[in-house]
Structure formats: C-alpha cells, structure tokens
C-alpha cells in the first residue's frame, strides 16, 4: 500500500508498506495508523523546510545589511583621504597662489600620507572579502615570528620615524606554522593603531613569549588606552575606538579573523601605567617528522 506524504500543498514523498503474506489485508485501524504516520512525517518535513527557508532569508537579510553598512562605511572612509588628496593637489595647482616651500611640502606630504592610508584601507577590504567569501585561504609555512615582526617594522619604518620601539624576543622561540602575509597584516594593523592613536614620540613595545603550547605576541602602546567595555567590542565589524583619527573599523576584525583561522586567539586590555595592549596567540605545534633538524652542517 502507498500513502502520499503531503507537506503544505505539494507531495514531498511516498510511504510504501508491503505485507509479508499474500492473503493478508490491512484492517481499518492499521490504515488509520499508517495515515497518521504519513501525516506526522509530512508535518515534520514541512517544519524543517520552513525553518531552513526562514534561516536562509535571515542570512540573506543580514548579508544585505552587512553589504549596505560596508558600502556606506567604505565610501565614507575612502572619501576622507581622497578629499584631502584632491584638496592638497588642487591647492598646489592653483596658479595665482603664492605658497612658501614649507606649505608646499606639507601639502605634498598630505597627499603621500593619505594615499598610503587609502592603500591600507584597500588591503584590509580585500583581505576581509577574502575571509568572508570562502573561509580564509591560509598558506602556512614554518618560520620564526620575529622575522615577520621585522618585516612589518621595516615596511612601517617611515611612519615609525624616530619613535622608540622596544623589543623583547627570547632567543629560543620555536618555529611556527603560519601564513607570512596574513600575520604580517595582523602586525601591521596593530602597529598602525598604535601609531595612529598615540603621540608621535610615545614608545611602542613588541613582545613574544611561549606559554602553554602557544606563542603569545604583544603590541603595546602608552596612549590613552581603551574605554571601559571597549576591549571586546573593538574587534567587531565597523566599530572604531572612541578616540579620534580611526579608519574604517575593519582592521581589528580582520586581525581576529586571521588569528582565529590559525587556531589562535586575540584580545585587548589596558596596561598598568596607561596605554593599550593587544595580544594574539599562535599554536606552537610539533613539526612533522624529520623537518626539525636542518641538515648540511655537523
């Protein structure tokens, strides 16, 4: 005997029951029982389908809101440096304006710095879409964390200028497996914040230490620190610190996504004696067999 399973207005399945002996028949009671099993199954299927559809709709709405927030946020944050660039360039181009060399230099410096700022924003947006689109593509390589710290500092050397940078890296740090470009981005975002939110001669301190199977990396400043309750929130998308001068509020969100994709954690806290401290961890895994000892020299 076959019974249709009807959810809503359309059939979603068929319930088939075979009787073992050829001479047997279903009695009315059995038929009713089978009908109610078919009905209950239909109700259950309908409920699951509806809830899946609802979830999909919600997800779509969320993506839509996210996209709108992103778009308005991006266009605002891209326009600010662009406005400074356009303004400075047109001032320099004005024929009947006599500028002294200091003023010219300042306008040119503005153009350069704001272009760098745009580049940083774009890099963050690209990485963000990369993370959101297909999970994150992590290209891990075995390497030392201090090498990447050095590369990030080197890349930011112009902006760091004479600012004191204190480094505390033990010699015996293990090699870690991570994506060099993504972790460099994390360090650059953290350093960028420290530069942006603190006075130009305020020291930045960089630390690394091994703890419970992880390497903990710290970027610490002596700036105004974080407002109460901001420690967690600043990692959320489009939330920027209450201090002035911030960017799009994507930098820390990307840091968190990258660190999480590496199996680590990232957090922020206020330092004793003032300032903010950002720390992240990377797992210190064992390297696969035979790769620990470099060959070539006895």
């Amino acid at each position, binding site marked *: 005997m076959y019974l249709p399973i009807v959810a809503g207005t359309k059939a979603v399945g068929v319930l088939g029951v075979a009787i073992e002996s050829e001479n047997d028949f279903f009695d009315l009671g059995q038929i009713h029982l089978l009908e109610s099993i078919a009905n209950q199954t239909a109700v259950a299927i309908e409920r699951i389908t509806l809830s899946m559809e609802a979830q999909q709709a919600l997800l779509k709405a969320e993506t839509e809101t996210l996209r709108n927030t992103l778009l308005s946020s991006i266009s605002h944050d891209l326009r600010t440096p662009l406005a400074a660039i356009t303004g400075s360039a047109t001032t320099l181009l004005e024929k009947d304006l006599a500028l002294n060399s200091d003023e010219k230099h300042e306008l040119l410096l503005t153009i350069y710095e704001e272009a760098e700022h745009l580049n940083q924003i774009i890099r963050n947006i690209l990485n963000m879409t990369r993370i959101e689109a297909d999970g994150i593509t992590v290209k891990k390589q075995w390497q030392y964390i201090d090498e990447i710290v050095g590369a990030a500092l080197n890349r930011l050397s112009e902006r760091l200028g004479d600012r004191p940078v204190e480094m505390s890296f033990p010699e015996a740090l293990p090699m870690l497996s991570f994506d060099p*470009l993504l972790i460099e981005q994390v360090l650059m975002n953290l350093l960028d914040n420290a530069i942006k939110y603190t006075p130009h001669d305020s020291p930045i301190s960089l630390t690394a230490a091994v703890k419970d199977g992880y390497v903990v990396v710290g970027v610490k400043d002596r700036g105004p620190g974080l407002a109460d309750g901001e420690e967690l929130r600043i990692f959320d998308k489009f939330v920027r610190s209450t201090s002035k001068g911030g960017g799009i509020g994507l930098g820390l969100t990307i840091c968190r996504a990258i660190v999480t994709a590496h199996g680590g954690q990232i957090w922020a806290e206020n330092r004793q004696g003032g300032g903010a401290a950002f720390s992240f961890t990377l797992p210190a895994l064992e390297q696969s067999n035979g790769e620990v000892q470099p060959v070539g020299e006895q």
Partner: protein
Amino acid sequence: MDNGLILLIEDEPQMLRFLRITIKGHHYRLIEAETAKDGLVQAAMRNPDVILLDLGLPDMDGIEVIRQLRSWCDTAVIVISAREQDEDKIRALDMGADDYLTKPFSAGELLARIRVAMRRKTPMQQADHIFTVCDMKVNLATRQVFINDVETHLTPIEYSLLTVLIKNAGKVVTHSQLLKEVWGANYANQTQYLRVYMAQLRRKLESTPARPKFLINEPAIGYRLKL
C-alpha cells in the same frame, strides 16, 4: 649627464606619466613600450641597461615575456606588480627577473632598485674584495667577517648564505634560489633550513636581530641584503 638607458614596458597612462617624469628627471634615457610585443622588439634593437616590466600587460603574460627575454639576453629586469599577483612575482623572480616593485611604490624605492640593477651592469671590481654595509665588513678574499672591526666566526653554510646575498646585494633573492645555491637543487623546497640559518646569521651580524638593518626578510618571497 647620462645614467643609462631604461626600457619601460607599461600600458597604464597614469603610471607612464609618473614613471617618465621620475626616470628622466634622474638623468636616465628612456624608451617606452606599451605592449609586450613592442617591448621585446625594443629590447632587441636598443639593448637597454635595465628593463622595467609591468606584469599585467594586455597582450602577453609577464612571465612569458621574461622567459622570452631570458632566452637571448641577460639585461636586468625589474618587474612591477600589484599585490594580488604574489605568486606571479615569485615565478617571475625564479624565471630570471632581478627584482620587483609592488604597486603602489614610492619614487625612492623605484630609483633604489634601478641603481642596484645598473650596478649589476658594471660587475664588482675584483679589487673590491671588501664588502661593507652598516657595522659589517666582509673580506671576500680571506673569508673573514667583522662586526665593528671585531672578527665574527661563521660556519661554512652561514658564510656561503651571506656571500650569495652579497653577490646579489640590494636585490631580493627567493627562498628557492638561496636553497639551490647554498644546499643544492634537491633542497629547493626546504625553507625551514634556510630560516634556521638566516636566524643564526641575523643573531651573529645584526645588533637588533628582530629589527634587522640589512638582512631583510621579504615575507613569502625571500631575503634581501639591503644596501
């Protein structure tokens, strides 16, 4: 004054405008080509000292341009690429390009790369067996290394790594190039070896190893001995 002849293969007009002014302003003569095909012809006809090659040309893959160039000439090639083309950058370097610039770059970076490439044209004088950078002095004849005039002992592999970087001073050398030169072709993928020895080298030669002055790491690509 003439600092040399540069062939610029680039199709974007804004980039051309900036590069033209910067290059000519520093007394280099300039040939421009807006397609890979024209670039290859100009390279053959004019024999430039340095070629600046954009990897994103419309008519040919940049890697292919380098392959064709390298089949008959060894002129220094500096590739210009966008950050999304990291893999291409490594392939270009392994294919024989001398160095790279990632957009956006400053005029200072461009000129530094060109100067290094021009220097390659006039090979190191043999009398120049002393190489100096920051606090380090290397006597390539006696194989001695000094930091602030104090001799530092290097193991054979450390010394060999250092000399490969000195031979390519100012240029980026990819992980696989360094591994091949120091350890041999079979070790081209063993980047961990390289990292261990680079760390040792930095500890011996740099005053602040975590913020090196001349043994520079180029993440995901290789190392550069910065002049």
